[in-house]
């Protein structure tokens, strides 16, 4: 074998360049990792299962379409145990993995509040589903909401109850967590503007086993309509049953939890005839119908907002990464904020400067256990 100056130089150059080339090639073929904090254990474990199904459906769709930046997208999940400390621990485990480009946070506002300081430190986009309006006003630039916040739900509940149902004396029942208190505050403000009165503002602790005192307070308050913000399905179902057993037939307009599949199944006839605001309604659009079809093919449970928000979050996030052209967090952030007119299962995403993607709600009605779409109310202000 003859060694010439040219062949030795070429060989050395190849040898020096090869590790970098291999690293680059591996980076191109390595999966695009998205972290996901979800409840696998604890009282909300069922909603975690639905959320994961929604996210996987979106990932399948993205990957079948060629992936993101020519890479297959992949989920890395951690159990938040349905607790705030669990959520913080789960997020910190995911944040320690430097190859994760973005995250899906929680549908529970209180857990997103708990994770928020670590999210700032991690400085990567986190898509979440909690509806406490304060979450996108924390000054945290990495939070992006994929459900309408409770200023909208409060306005829609108040508008429907006062204008459509003609009820002006309200009982507000809410969880005492961040979601419940935030929602109740938003509803109270909206009712004030609509000229309605608050006969009862009653908080309750999550995982209550008995709502008799709450129901009796509603009866004695003289309220002619109930507005509610329940966090957990089982609490809502126990309340609904006791409400009907103790003879309260007052109309009831609830936050999205009143129309989720878990609550509808547990409460049964006790929720018949109730109204709810729902970010996901199967018949609201062609996109929601398409999502419902995909979801029903892999699940025996009807689709609801637990799965629709993660489906949309993965869709918007992957589109934003593709638009950014790279995985630099700042560029992904800008691309998410620039998202306009993205038609998802929950509605059309138009992100504002705070990171809120949706600005309206559907009104649905429980007709003998079936959740029926009534109308969509969108806000532009």
């Amino acid at each position, binding site marked *: 074998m003859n060694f010439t100056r040219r062949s030795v130089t070429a060989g050395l150059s190849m040898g020096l360049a090869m590790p970098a080339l291999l690293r680059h090639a591996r980076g191109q073929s390595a999966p695009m990792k998205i972290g996901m904090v979800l409840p696998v254990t604890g*009282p909300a474990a069922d909603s975690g299962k639905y959320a994961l199904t929604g996210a996987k459906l979106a990932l399948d769709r993205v990957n079948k379409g060629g992936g993101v930046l020519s890479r297959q997208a992949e989920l890395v999940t951690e159990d938040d145990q349905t607790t705030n400390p669990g959520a913080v621990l789960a997020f910190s485990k995911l944040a320690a993995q430097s190859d994760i480009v973005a995250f899906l946070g929680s549908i529970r506002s209180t857990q997103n509040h708990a994770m928020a300081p670590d999210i700032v430190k991690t400085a990567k986009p986190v898509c979440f589903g909690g509806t406490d309006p304060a979450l996108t006003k924390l000054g945290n630039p990495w939070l992006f909401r994929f459900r309408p916040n409770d200023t909208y739900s409060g306005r829609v509940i108040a508008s429907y109850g006062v204008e459509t149902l003609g009820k002006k004396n309200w009982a507000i029942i809410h969880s005492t967590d961040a979601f419940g208190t935030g929602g109740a505050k938003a509803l109270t403000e909206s009712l004030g503007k609509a000229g309605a009165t608050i006969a009862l503002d009653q908080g309750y602790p999550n995982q209550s086993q008995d709502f008799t005192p709450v129901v009796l307070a509603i009866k004695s308050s003289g309220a002619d309509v109930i507005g509610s913000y329940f966090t957990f399905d089982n609490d809502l179902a*126990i309340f609904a049953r006791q409400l009907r057993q103790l*003879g309260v037939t007052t109309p009831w307009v609830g936050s999205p939890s009143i129309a989720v599949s*878990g609550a509808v199944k547990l409460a049964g006839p006790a929720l018949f005839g109730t109204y709810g605001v729902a970010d996901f309604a199967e018949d609201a659009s062609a996109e929601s119908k398409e999502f419902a079809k995909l979801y029903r093919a892999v699940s025996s449970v009807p689709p609801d907002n637990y799965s629709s928000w993660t489906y949309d979050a993965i869709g918007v996030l992957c589109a934003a990464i593709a638009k950014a052209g790279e995985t630099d967090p700042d560029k992904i952030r800008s691309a998410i904020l620039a998202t306009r007119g993205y038609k998802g299962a929950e509605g059309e995403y138009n992100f504002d400067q705070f990171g809120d993607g949706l600005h309206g709600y559907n009104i649905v009605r429980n007709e003998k256990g079936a959740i029926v779409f009534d109308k969509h109310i969108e806000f532009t202000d």
Partner: protein
Amino acid sequence: MDLVLQLLFTGLGIGAIYALVALGFVLIFRATNVVNFAQGEFSMVAAYLMVVFAVDLGWPYWLSFLLAIGGMALLGAIFNLGVYYPLRNRTFLPVIISTIGASIFLANTVLALYGPQPQVLPGWFDTPGVQFGPVYLDSQYLLIIAVTIALVAFQYWFFEHTLLGKKLQATSQDKEMAALLGIPVARMIMITFVYSAVLGGIAGILVAPILFVSIQMGSTIALKAFAATIIGGFGDVAGAIIGGLALGVIETFGAAYISVPYKDAFAFLVLILFLAFRPRGLFGERVAEKA
């Protein structure tokens, strides 16, 4: 007055659930001197067994109940052999940690086998309740109160008027002396675990139509039942019953007349007061004598 009666009925119904689970705590404590932190999970497992038999398989309710109770007896025996027996000669701490581990194991096993979705278990009666004057009597709460009374009566008769009951009492009071008198101590402890698992199971099956069937249902009830046991006096059967009923009534009235959000705080405030001023509980003298 109507409000008071309604609250009293509901408080007693909830208190009866705490009392049933607290009874299981007390029996095992008396027999082994340790607290079984998996007592709440016994309730959860029994409720899931009922869902499998009565709902999924569609078998008759009475047959499902008998099978679920049989399953709980078996679980109690396995629990004794696997969780308590290997550590019986150690101090109380390893046994307590072992029961905590068992509770986590049971909860996660059911989660893995059945999934996270809460389930609906129908009640014993087709009628959800009856209106008795101004008070609505939930049929399931009526059943819970009736079963609690029946079990307390049975327990009194069993422990005071049967040879086996007296052997169990002797074992709980002094294991060494009981062994010297020819009482098979290991078998007595086995029977105690089996009976406690059955008691926990009955509580779970009774409460499931009200609170639904979920992985965490056991821990929710057990926490209050544990508080009831301390209030009543650890190791005392009457104390567990009265402590449970008192706790149910206190938290219901506290919620109605003071604050719903602080409902749980009333129960634990009472617990703290007892721990501070009467740590032996209402009927705790017998434990002191035993020590």
